[in-house]
């Protein structure tokens, strides 16, 4: 995925009735990409790029950066190409083990994230975000409204899996800024092989 090509990707926007935004949440667990600042701490990224406030960050009990659990949000640095996964508190001993800074963090010391970058290279890049469980509803609407990059294949799977009720609840759809009929979006053949698309979803819920 090349940030220089981003302007050439198809851009789809949807305005949906409030509850329908939850239909997009399962895309978040697979991972979506955003264009964002890099070279900043995870804490700063959560605040400024994801829009998480202090209370929300407290509820983000497990933070996984490039496959490794993070204990210190201030020292771990987001880079171009980073994969960041976020989870609320999880059950079980392993759930407790994966909590940041928890009593049982030593249980997974072999895979814990340790920042190796001595100097932060500030810039812009693409970061993949995965949002799990209760955080999907908490962080999802704002992130989706801001816009995410997903593969056209993922969007095709999403679109073909939706019922007519969903499409009837789509108030406005645009492709590259031009209005599009829901039927045209359901016929996804034109998207096949397009690589990446930029998707923005807004709803009453997100706007509130």
């Amino acid at each position, binding site marked *: 995925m090349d940030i220089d090509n981003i302007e050439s990707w198809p851009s789809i926007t949807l305005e949906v009735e409030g509850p329908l935004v939850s239909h997009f949440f*399962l895309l978040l*667990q697979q991972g979506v990409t955003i264009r964002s600042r890099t070279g900043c701490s995870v804490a700063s990224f959560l605040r400024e790029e994801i829009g998480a406030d202090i209370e929300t960050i407290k*509820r983000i009990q497990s933070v996984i950066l490039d496959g490794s659990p993070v204990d210190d949000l201030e020292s771990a640095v987001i880079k171009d190409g980073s994969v960041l*996964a976020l989870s*609320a508190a999880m059950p079980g001993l392993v*759930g407790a083990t994966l909590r940041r800074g928890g009593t049982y963090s030593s249980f997974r010391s*072999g895979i814990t994230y340790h920042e190796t970058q001595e100097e932060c290279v500030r810039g812009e890049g693409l970061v993949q975000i995965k949002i799990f469980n209760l955080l999907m509803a908490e962080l999802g609407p704002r992130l989706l409204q801001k816009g995410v990059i997903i593969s056209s294949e993922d969007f095709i799977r999403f679109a073909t899996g939706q019922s007519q009720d969903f499409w009837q609840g789509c108030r406005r759809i645009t492709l590259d800024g031009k209005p599009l009929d829901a039927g045209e979006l359901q016929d996804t053949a034109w998207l096949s092989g397009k690589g990446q698309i930029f998707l923005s979803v807004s709803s009453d819920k997100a706007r509130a």
Partner: protein
Amino acid sequence: MDKILRIDMGADGGPKTSSVPLGQYAGFGGRAMTSAIVSKEVPPLCHPLGAENKLVIAPGLLSGTASAMSGRISVGGKSPLTGGIKEANSGGQPSQVLARLGYAAIVLEGKPKNNDLYKVFINKDGVKISVDNSLKMLPNYDLVAKMKAEYGEKICCISIGPAGEMKMASATVAFTDMELRPTRHAGRGGLGAVMGSKGVKVIVLDDTIVRGSTPGSPAVTMQMRVPKDPEKFKDANKRFVDGLKSHAVTGQGLPAYGTNVLTNILNEVGGYPTYNFKQGRFDGASKISGETQAETEKTRGANPTHGCHRGCVIQCSGTYNDKDGHYLTKQPEYETVWAHGGNCGISDLDKIAMMDFLDDNYGIDTIEMGATIAVAMDAGLAKFGDADAAIQMIHEVGKGTHLGRILGSGAAVTGKAYGVERVPVVKGQAMPAYDPRAVQGIGVTYATSPMGADHTAGYAVAQNVLKVGGDVNALKPEGQVELSRNLQIATAAIDSTGMCLFIAFAVLDQPDTFQALLDLLNSFYGMNLTADGVTDLGKKVLTMERDFNAKAGFTAAQDRLPEYFKSEKFAPHNVTFGVKDEDLDKVFNW
């Protein structure tokens, strides 16, 4: 709950029952009761399927009371799978009902002299045992339907499926849930085979009493057990429930998604054993995650938020419907979805749900069965990802074909039969859904638990609350051994109360909730139990269990993970299990 029901299945003239006082077992419940009776009365060198072994079924100390979360029930005996002592516990209705009927335990002893199959009926009037060979080889769902037709809808059942009758080492003991479905299982260690060896197919419990003396008077369930100090008990229960409901895990995460909420995060950290423990990530994880599962259930009119017994406020269970909206099985748990899913390379939730149903119906441990299928796939019996072949293997077990007999004996036996080196077992029992190379601390518990590889053995409470063994420096390597020790002690104690282990999350984080738990026990029994007392109980239980295993021939050599965990690097982190043997040997030094 002041008596023990002993049923001698080998008595001259047929099974003989006796109801005896608690005696030396007073004050014990759940795992403490099962392990105390087994360690005291079962010869450690006996054959698990022989007359000398005993099957002990014991509700927890607070079962049958108004206390929330008190519906766990323990089953104990010498395990046909591990050859050591075993306690497996389950949710469902029978714990509450058995306790209200006044029994602190049922002990099945001896062995029938013929091949008759028995059913046991227990109500307020006593115990009836009768031969019923029409039940032979009935799967659990059909069996329960038959009991319902015979005894009515207010019963609950403890039963075995065909796997238990065939005395397979992966056989479970099933317990019915609130809807009278056999969906809850004491799964681990093959205790269903011990029940099968006693010739008991089903124990039917009925705690109804008729209110009024006129014909047609309504049947109602017996009253809850009465605490010594009802006011303090009520107050403690309120604080306990408030604590559970206010905690993020017990109040939100588990009710919304169930235990399968763990799939995504375990996969993300690379600790999700995939393709028979070959790698830590599964490409299809998001297709079988708790989030996807809950959405699927809602879309099909099923319920992702449901308790496994009355009095449950966490509601981590649920129901799973097929594509046509018909009930297929209860919501498959994380361990089941992993065992039949990622571990076998299968990412079809409907097929996994079908396997969950078949396991419940035939009475097979889902973890052992899934791990066994993965070993069989490694042996070339099927390709990883072939869900239909996996389903067929479970049918082979249920039918008792020659292949099914091997598979039903568990992963270790299947590995031997087919010459597979990568067999993820400890003490003969298959590992659950967390790779010990990625999460090394849990590997310490897998290796050293008297139960064999068990994810719940070191699950519970709060070293920082209990202060077991003093303050632990979790940053030192030896901290993993110390934490595992403390967790095993705490878990043994919680298992003895009959409380659901999931209370541990709230107790872990909220000392007030832990105090409420102590207050529940103290106000009910008029005791003065403290955190130290809980610790002592846990140590006592583990000591009994370790002593039994030592006499059964276990040495330090059994407290080890398979060698390949030390040498095969586990992707994506390329880690091996690094805790030294001499450190493992220190786990039970207290």
